[in-house]
């Protein structure tokens, strides 16, 4: 397997006057959160292990105070962890020299911020070209790239506006264009849409999915909104009190939640959009007859109508073989909700 772009190895970040007493040689001396808390230390993140794969969208999800922003700052090389290692391309991110870290930030990372972080004294063009200006690229080159980025996010014609003259959605488009201007390998999005209206938020999510389809970046996306996570993520990590509760695809979290917290978190998820035929079928297939066929990887939403209209069960196909069957009662279970349903393991 290819090595992950970014990885966390037992990463912790502690706050409190006595925090340094519990760290030796970059390792925590205790595995017990309570010991730390009794010493007046707040572990913002605690013993986090993660692998972030190349070209995939990895979502870190949690409520406020769960440590997701601290984790992002560690991953992005902004805040050093108190213990553990952040591996970037298999090298410890915080063992790079300051000059090397600056080069990594300039050429390999880009970030979109929750409150946009646009520079108020620069125009749209100036903001998007800002990272290139910092790199010291010549004016003509950086403005050409910036123009391309502005077209990419659909803001052409507004290059010479100032941020204060744009709507929230437009401002965040500028933020997105700017974060992509340096052509980063890893694209960090820190709750990029939580400051936006729900309608705009949906539109911007579609924008990120569209851009990701074109650019194939490695994305680290922070959100507190499970629906948003489902929409954009390849894999999701759910955090609580500084610890990762579970990592997996949206469907894995839904089908086999590791903890009650994950179960509660995913309760109101749009199940029909997440679950595939495989996770709701019965594996003891009757011989038929079938009303039709669906692929094991098809989402429920894509065949729900067909199933509803058919009086016979549908066959679930994988590699041209029938591996299971779905009937209308299963559809109803999904709609009614998880309390009355015992899905999978």
């Amino acid at each position, binding site marked *: 397997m290819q090595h992950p772009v970014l990885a966390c190895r037992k990463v912790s970040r502690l706050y409190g006057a006595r925090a340094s007493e519990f760290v030796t040689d970059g390792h925590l001396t205790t595995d017990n959160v309570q010991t730390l808390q009794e010493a007046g230390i707040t572990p913002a993140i605690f013993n986090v292990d993660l692998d972030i794969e190349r070209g995939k969208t990895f979502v870190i999800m949690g409520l406020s105070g769960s440590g997701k922003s601290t984790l992002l700052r560690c991953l992005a090389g902004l805040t050093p962890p108190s213990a553990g290692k952040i591996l970037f391309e298999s090298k410890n991110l915080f063992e790079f020299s300051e000059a090397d870290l600056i080069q990594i930030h*300039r050429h390999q990372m880009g970030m979109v911020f929750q409150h946009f*972080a646009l520079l*108020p004294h620069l125009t749209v063009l100036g903001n998007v070209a800002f990272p290139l200006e910092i790199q010291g690229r010549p004016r003509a080159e950086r403005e050409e790239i910036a123009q391309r980025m502005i077209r990419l996010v659909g803001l052409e014609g507004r290059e010479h506006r100032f941020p204060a003259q744009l709507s929230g959605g437009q401002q965040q488009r500028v933020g997105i264009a700017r974060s992509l201007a340096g052509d980063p390998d890893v694209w960090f999005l820190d709750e990029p849409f939580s400051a936006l209206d729900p309608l705009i938020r949906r539109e911007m999510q579609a924008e990120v999915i569209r851009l990701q389809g074109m650019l194939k970046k490695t994305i680290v996306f922070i959100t507190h909104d499970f629906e948003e996570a489902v929409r954009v993520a390849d894999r999701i990590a759910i955090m609580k009190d500084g610890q990762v509760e579970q990592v997996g695809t949206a469907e894995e979290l839904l089908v086999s939640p590791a903890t009650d917290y994950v179960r509660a978190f995913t309760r109101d998820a749009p199940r029909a959009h997440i679950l595939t035929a495989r996770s709701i079928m019965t594996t003891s297939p009757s011989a038929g007859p079938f009303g039709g066929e669906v692929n094991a990887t098809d989402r429920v939403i894509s065949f729900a109508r067909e199933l509803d209209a058919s009086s016979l069960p549908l066959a679930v196909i994988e590699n041209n073989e029938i591996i299971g069957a779905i009937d209308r009662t299963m559809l109803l279970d999904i709609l009614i909700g998880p309390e009355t349903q015992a899905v999978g393991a």
Partner: protein
Amino acid sequence: MKKASALPAGVVFGKPVNLRHLPWLIIVILSVILAELPRTVFPRWVQKYPTGWRLSLADWISAFMHWLTVDAHLGPLTVSGFTRALSFLLDLPLQLASMVLATGVLKGQGSEAVMLFPPVPWFALIIAIAALSWTLRGWRLAVGMTIGFLYLAVFGQWTSAMVTLASVLVAALLSAAGGLALGLLCVRSATFGRLLSPLLDVAQTMPVFAYLLPMLILFGFGPVSAMIATVIYAIPPMVRVTVVAIQGVPDELRSLGSMTGCTRRQMTWRILLPTALPGLMVGVNQVIMLSLNVVIIASMIGAGGLGWDVLGALRRLDIGGGLEAGLAITVLAVMLDRFAQALVPDARRSGPSGSRSHHRVIAGALALAGLLWIAAALWPAIAHYPESARLSTGPFWNDLVSWINIHFHDPLDVIKTFMLLHVLMPVKRFMLALPWPWVVTVVTLAGLWMGGIRLALTVGLMCGFMAVVGLWQPAMITLYLCGVSVVIAMLLGVPVGVIATQRPWLMKSVEVFIDTLQTLPAFVYLIPIVMLFRVGDFTAMIGIVLYAIAPAIRYTAHGISHVPESLIEAGTMTGCTRGQILRRIRLPHALPDMLLGLNQTILLALSMLVITALVGTRDLGQVTYAALSKADVGQGVVAGLCVAFIGMISDRFIRQAIRQPGS
């Protein structure tokens, strides 16, 4: 002290006396008893601080200055050689600015000087500035600047105003740049900030008079000493504003800097400073205002310009002349401020529209101004504003004051006598009757209760200092004059501030009024007051109240009008009347702001004290002023420090009060 007598008053009206306030009540009662007891009851050392116990700090400072200027060496260089060299360096930009604006290029010395090239003629400067203002902010600013400069030309203030402008420009630039640099250092190193902070406090509260003399000794008589004194006076707010503005840059923008790979320098220059610029401009505004404030004082040590004109007019008791020169300072202040604000790019204004034509206008106007300048060099006759077209309102003001004096002498006298007999004299007697050990003890105890051991030590030592250096009596007179004036300023200012917020039109006129009062040199309005009320404590009090009322009004209005809208709505929804909203919501919410206003009022009152020394008070201001005229460095510095300490004691108490709401 004043604080102690103010606190329990609120208790008497309300509920039964709260135990928390009991110590204050006891202190007040004891103070009154102590003050009323015949003096002979106390041992001699309590009645008056014994001369034998005095610390001759003033002599030591004088001796030190002597040593510094005569014997001290920095490596191979004597200190005085070093300061003279520095003075020469600082003189260069000053020379350049006044060459361009006021004096022209001269050859030779004194009255034999021959002008090789004239300064910018008035019409050329107006054209250039108007064109610049128009491109920066449009025609409104251009018209305003033109009117301002025309005022200077028409009323015959041009040459003096340009001398002042040159020195203020250089001083303001130095203060702004220096303040910015110090502020950035404070942000970078907390230790540096902690070390600098008390020095800034002293620089801000010590009267300028107190360090004029050391400046003169170190840097020689002339504009450079005046400029350095100005910078010392004007730099503290710039440092403070810089720290606040830089720390106020959102964290996200710092992260942005890191994420785009900014080096430390790029972070400062590309992210922090541009984002903090609107905040920093508040500091620049302060710097300009403060620089203009000391123009008059600086003119005493050879800076010349408008300040000198005002002083001259005062000596002739020429109200009209003084007022016109004084107003010229105000006009200069307003113009400088507006122009400086216009230099900040406005993010809300659309950028590029017609920027090329703007460039063309600028180039054309500058070329025209240059041509006119050359023309003025060739035909010097056209360079000066014609004498015959000058106006003066001087006679009008002189007549007005005499008219008031003739027709309203009796009622004015009644007011004065009443205030003197029933307010000023009793308070003064009370303050002077308090035994000094008692006052020091009370101040220390108050520090202990309010803020703990650190505060107690700080304020106690500062208070003791005044007794130890033998300036107890003038310090108490200072406290009485300042205290009464501050109370009156607050009694007048708070209601005005409250009423003004309810009526926007009133707010505007009040703002113009207090802006004028603050930029108009205090000397100017002291003259009519002196003519109406003659010299004495009452006159000084009016002067102080007029000067110090501005923050009382401004901070109250700010606090009242910045109550969150949701709180007001909550009040409305619970059925509060307008009065209830004011009393139950707005006023409590505005209290911290009003306390800040009180703080500023006290500091301004203290700084005004030194100027009112001219009208014959007997306080610390007088001691400072007398020391200046006797060239007694030590006494001047020590008296100045006493004034600074009074300001800092009240500042520490008020800040502590703001920090613990409800106390």
